[in-house]
């Protein structure tokens, strides 16, 4: 597909990304899926953790030089991006970065403000080479050195506790469980940044002027607590973690099903759904739960939401007794047939077997220079006329250095010299093409759409 035929909404937008982990990379990846040309500028002297992780199956010392291309975060965060290897602490590399920047529309980083300034890529410096740049700086605590937390380090897994999400995760009688193994605050920071960038592009269409975007993750993620923060001045009690319950629906919870570690999530928002649930024939036949001193449904008030919230423990005991005698899939199907929101709590293998996932194929498989082909999530914003896609999985680290530098005017000889003296670098041994252990399984697993290098959907088995 030629560039002019590419009607994706960000086609023609060039993004200079210097980033680490998730927050900025997931913004750049969403832009790439919607058509932007994203240059991930990387260095061996301060590698992205996605490069350092690699893959467990690739720990063979003979693969040490290509290990950085094997991690599943590489396609997940950087599919569709081009990787440019520049050691920016070297003056000549910085000059090359400036020449690339002069051709770009957007600068995207989540390096800490002092670090990015040290590299010579603070807003004022970038603006000098590219006056209409849209500069998106993602920080933990903003860019004002006079503010209290400015020198503090924001670190992915420490973000959720800081912004109040961890304290609200768990049961009231236990320590907070928190969410230490996942990083939703980073993804939410990335989405706010993309919203800001698209807004700045829209503004620039009219004014021709660039913009400095100061995205401090503290503010973006604390914003999600809005109603409760507003309540603090009005005398509303502080919210406390309450398991899976919510203030506006009952029952709401995750209930044990038959089998080992099998669960179902159920939420009953209104009287109509409650009447459907209470009408289940077996409900009244449930034997008393050993562990809970509970009354049968018929003996406590449940007609209104307030009644159900007041008797939530008793309802939970009865509902658990019902779910525990069914598989999670069966319970979900029975409840959904009654119009009740319910789903099996899928684990890693459950997602792979999910009928909806099989039908809609929310993952992609696209050509990969290091792995032949590779798998990663698609963008969920399915636009009917200009659907998101990328034509290539994760780039090799430095794999696009030569192409990109020659495109912006460097002679091949100059690039060779920069690579020889360590100013720039290219990917290690491009002829080494590995295969993920489960590559052969991709056709049969049926969760992914296969794309070729032109962006066409193919049937797989490329």
């Amino acid at each position, binding site marked *: 597909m030629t560039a002019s035929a590419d009607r994706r*909404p*960000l086609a023609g937008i060039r993004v200079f990304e210097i980033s680490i982990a998730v927050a900025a990379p997931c913004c750049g990846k969403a832009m790439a899926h919607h058509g932007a040309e994203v240059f991930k500028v990387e260095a061996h002297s301060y590698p992205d953790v996605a490069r350092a992780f690699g893959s467990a*199956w690739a720990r063979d010392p003979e693969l040490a030089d290509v290990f950085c291309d094997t991690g*599943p*975060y590489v396609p997940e965060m950087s599919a569709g991006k081009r990787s440019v290897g520049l050691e920016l602490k070297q003056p000549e590399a910085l000059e090359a970065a400036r020449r690339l920047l002069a051709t770009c529309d957007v600068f995207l980083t989540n390096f800490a403000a002092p670090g990015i300034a040290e590299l010579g890529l603070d807003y004022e410096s970038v603006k000098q080479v590219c006056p209409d740049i849209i500069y998106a700086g993602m920080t933990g605590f903003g860019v004002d050195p006079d503010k209290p937390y400015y020198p503090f*380090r924001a670190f992915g*897994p*420490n973000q959720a*506790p800081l912004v*109040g999400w961890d*304290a609200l*995760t*768990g049961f009231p009688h236990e*320590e*907070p*469980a*928190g*969410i*230490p*193994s*996942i990083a*939703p605050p980073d993804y939410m920071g990335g989405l706010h940044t993309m*919203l800001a960038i698209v*807004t*700045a*592009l*829209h*503004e620039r*269409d009219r004014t021709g002027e660039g913009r400095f975007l100061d995205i*401090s993750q*503290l*503010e*973006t993620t604390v*914003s*999600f*607590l809005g*109603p409760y*923060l*507003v*309540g603090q001045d009005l005398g*509303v009690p502080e919210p406390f973690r309450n398991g899976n319950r*919510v203030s*506006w629906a009952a029952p*709401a919870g*995750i209930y044990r099903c038959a089998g080992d570690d099998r669960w*179902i*999530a159920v939420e009953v928002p209104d009287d109509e759904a409650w009447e459907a649930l209470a009408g289940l024939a077996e409900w009244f036949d449930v034997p008393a739960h050993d562990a809970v001193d509970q009354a049968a449904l018929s003996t406590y008030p449940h007609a209104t939401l307030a009644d159900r919230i007041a008797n939530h423990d008793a309802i939970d005991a009865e509902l658990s007794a019902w779910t525990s005698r069914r598989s999670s899939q069966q319970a979900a199907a029975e409840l*959904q047939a009654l119009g009740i929101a319910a789903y*099996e*709590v*899928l*684990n890693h293998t459950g997602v792979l077997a999910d009928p909806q*996932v099989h039908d809609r194929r929310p993952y992609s498989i696209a050509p990969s220079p290091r792995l032949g082909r590779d798998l990663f999530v698609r963008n969920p*914003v*399915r*636009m*009917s*006329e*200009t659907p998101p896609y990328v034509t290539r999985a994760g780039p090799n680290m430095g794999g696009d250095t030569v192409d990109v530098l020659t495109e912006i005017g460097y002679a091949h000889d100059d690039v060779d010299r920069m690579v020889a003296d360590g100013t720039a670098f290219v990917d290690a041994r491009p002829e080494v093409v590995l295969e993920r252990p*489960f590559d052969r399984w991709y056709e049969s697993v049926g969760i992914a759409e296969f794309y070729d290098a032109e962006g066409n959907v193919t049937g797989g088995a490329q």
Partner: protein
Amino acid sequence: MSPAQQGHGPWSGVRVLDLTGLSGAYGTRVWAALGADVICVEPPGGNPIRNMPPLAPGHEGPEASLWWAYYAASKRSVVLDSTDLSDIDALVQLIASADVVLDDAMPAAQEGYSWLADVGEAGLGVSGIVERYPHLTWVSITPFGMTGPRRHWRSSNLVAWASCGLASTVGFPHGPPLAPAGEIGVLMHGASLHAVIGSMMSVRARNLAAAEGEPALGQTIDLSLQEVGLWLSPETGVPLYLDDQVPRPRAGNRRPVTSPMGMYPASDGYVAIIAIQPAHWNAVAQWVHELTGNEGILDEIFIDIVVRREALEAVDAWVEELTTRFTKQELFVEGQRRRIPITPVNTVGDLRHDPHLEAVGWWRPEEHPVLGTYTVPGSPFSTDGDWWAWQRAPMLGEHTDEVLSELT
């Protein structure tokens, strides 16, 4: 008057009809404050968000919900009755006048809107609507998408976390899976951001095409809550599991990878510490040593994360001797000074009084004719331009006459 009516903000001149609840509200809140004319079309009883606790103490009725007060900021409210023919006609005119519609109705409803039949169009689905109004972007935010065998299944924030695999990894090993951040509704916020980003891109592309003399595209956007969850869940399943075949079980609030890693008790709550790198461990050990005189903790053998994993209970106990002596904020400030990745496990009350948020002037007073004066969070990000214009949430039907008179 909304900010858009005043011609303020980068999105002024763009009209958005918000027919959603929680799955659209946060994103359209941000968009409205950036100048879009966001019109909430509500039934006579009001948007269901208006009933959601917490309510302002001493208040009831359609203005009492703090969810509404927060999420409907800078928007306009129009009440239309779907059983009234002239209201249906007004809705069709509103759609014709809009750039974007966000809709969270179930797929079966969106595929055959009968109110269009009432004004002479036989049961148009959303694709038919954008064909008729090609300047329009129609975003369908549904539990499982507009296609597939489970498109008619219902969902919620909690159920969506279950359906994407992420909830299975949150919680203690002995207990059930958990929704991250409970009723805050993080996944719904994420969906609303995706919906608004997609709409913004679509509107911008339409404008650029129009400037080139090309015809408008008329897009629908099919956004599934399950897929919103999958997009932010690589940690918990595909593709990481496909690659390493290592299950991600629930591990509670400490990760048995090494110590200290996870939550530790402070004198007034908890802090979160992650010390994997040698420099971080050394700083922790030095601090413990200074306070407690513990010499053993300085032994070089503990620099190895594997040794600390094998001596997990002992190392955790040493670290707790430090953490329990201070408040979480003291540990945060002093720990960060020592370059240790440590943060307080903040509560809503802590954040309302956080010294940094106070110092950056984040909070903003708001006046409401029913609820009085209160303090609300500031903008979620800032720029060097004059982008933001915040207004209080509209009262039920406050702008019905105003908006309908603009149509004629």
